């Protein structure tokens, strides 16, 4: 396999973002390995471990799948009607090659009925692996920059 370049990572992250923004959640799930994790640390403890710190989200693959099942259900009231989101991803960096750890900055605009935009700013930290010749997500963490969630409210969509 030839060396992975930043452009490959960018293509992958853009694809992931487009699936999430389009709520194509089953296709998004297919980007994850069977051991994948998804984490959002508490805003006041951006660098911590869910074993000993309270997170906003700390899913293993079973709970990621349950989260998607929930979000597809119209009884997930927090996302019914669904938020519209638009992710802008930039400053993509390859931090480590083995394992492949990448970071990227994000801005996610979230629109809900009858209210102004909510803007989620932060960085993704993904651990990626090659499976059957394609990049897959082994771990993804979304670390928000805001000091507290405050007016951002909930993280009921996938960050």
């Amino acid at each position, binding site marked *: 396999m030839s060396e992975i370049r930043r452009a490959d990572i960018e293509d992958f992250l853009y694809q992931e973002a487009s699936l999430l923004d389009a709520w194509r959640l089953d296709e998004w799930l297919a980007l994850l390995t069977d051991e994948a994790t998804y984490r959002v640390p508490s805003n006041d403890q951006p660098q911590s471990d869910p074993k000993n710190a*309270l997170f906003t989200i700390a899913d293993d693959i079973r709970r990621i799948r*349950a989260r998607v*099942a*929930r979000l597809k259900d119209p009884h*997930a*009231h927090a996302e019914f009607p669904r938020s519209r989101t638009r992710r802008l991803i930039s400053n993509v960096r390859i931090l480590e090659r083995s394992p492949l750890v990448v970071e990227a900055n994000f801005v996610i605009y979230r629109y809900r009925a009858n209210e102004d935009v909510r803007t989620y700013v932060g960085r993704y930290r993904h651990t990626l692996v090659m499976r059957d010749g394609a990049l897959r997500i082994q771990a993804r963490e979304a670390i928000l920059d805001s000091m507290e969630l*405050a007016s951002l409210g*909930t993280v009921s969509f996938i960050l």
Partner: protein
Amino acid sequence: MSASRLVLHEPEQHRFEINRAALVDPAIFREEQERIFERCWLYVGHESEVRAPGDFRTRTVCGRPLLLCRDSKNELRVFLNTCRHRGTIVCREAQGNAERYTCFYHGWTYDRDGRLYAVPGQSAYPPNFDRTQLGLKEPSRVEAYRGFVFLNFDANAVSLREYLGRAAEYIDLVLDQSPSGRMEVILGTQEYDIRANWKLLVENSFDDYHLLTTHATWLDYLKSSGVEVKRPEKGHVLPSHGLGKDLGNGHGTTDNVNFRGRPVAAWIPIYGEAAKPELERIRAELVLRLGAERAKRVADTNRNLLIFPNLVLLDGSSVSVRSFQPLAPDRMRVRAWALGPVEESPLARQVRLDSFLTFYGPGGFATPDDIAALESVQEGLGAYKEVQWSPLTRGMAKEGEQLNTDEAHLRAFWMQWARLMQAA
């Protein structure tokens, strides 16, 4: 409209209605600040959040900037975090440890005991300038119950212990999870706003009537993970029996037979096979220490406890301490923490934190739907002049026990609210 007209209570007619203006009107909101928040005991924080001399946390309660800290003798103190000179916030960090607190504006410096330690160019002040009178001010009253620190802005208030009354035994029940009777706030704060009146979160925190509909997807998640969720018995709406209790002074609780998992100590498949022996060990310790009956009480019931007006202890899928500050008639800021026994094993701590996230918090499988409900209510209250009254009468015509899906405990909250709003 005067507060006395906002809660309509006619017991003989089985009428109990809330005027929706109570949740909307800015004048009512301002009155609440004076009559409720400046007179009741308000939760500040937990003793475990500051441990050594000089440790501090800054926090806003009832609009007041506070410094929760340990003084030079390691006593827990609460100061109003405002410089006696011009009013600047003296300590501007969220947490840390300080030898002294120096106001960055003109350099006035306070020691750990709140005394004014140094004033740059003090000689320019007249002779009557008295540094000993210019220490950091403290709220009128600060008292703690078993690690939970409260303040009161009313110097004439009853003691915290008297104020808590019968609610104290429900705090004790939570703390019985710990072999030493001591729990700690775990690292990580969930802090988020809800675009709704604070009293809606009071109701929501111990109203179990909404569980089946609001949390349908959470129940589905439990079921699909292998938890047995029974069909409600005839005339009931929930899978297990539960009570709603008025504990006096506006406090109240649910008191339910557990059907969901509990880190202390009711294993469910979500916790994983590896955690099973650890939960059995925890339960054995409970039985040994407390006896079979009390152990069952601790491990096999879950309770959502309201300490009037704005503190909730949720002892369900985990233990959460949740307090909320009204910011506007239609907005509040919520702060929530996880609480665990100080001597908890790493594995049990992991289960506790993981279980927390299955239900609670801004990314959980349930809390976001609660918030959606409250925000939807607040939006609906836009029609409060046309649709004026909300009934709160479940269980009212019934003799004997009140269920968690009845509204006796919610009525008790509202009656205390009305009493305080009407008090001279």
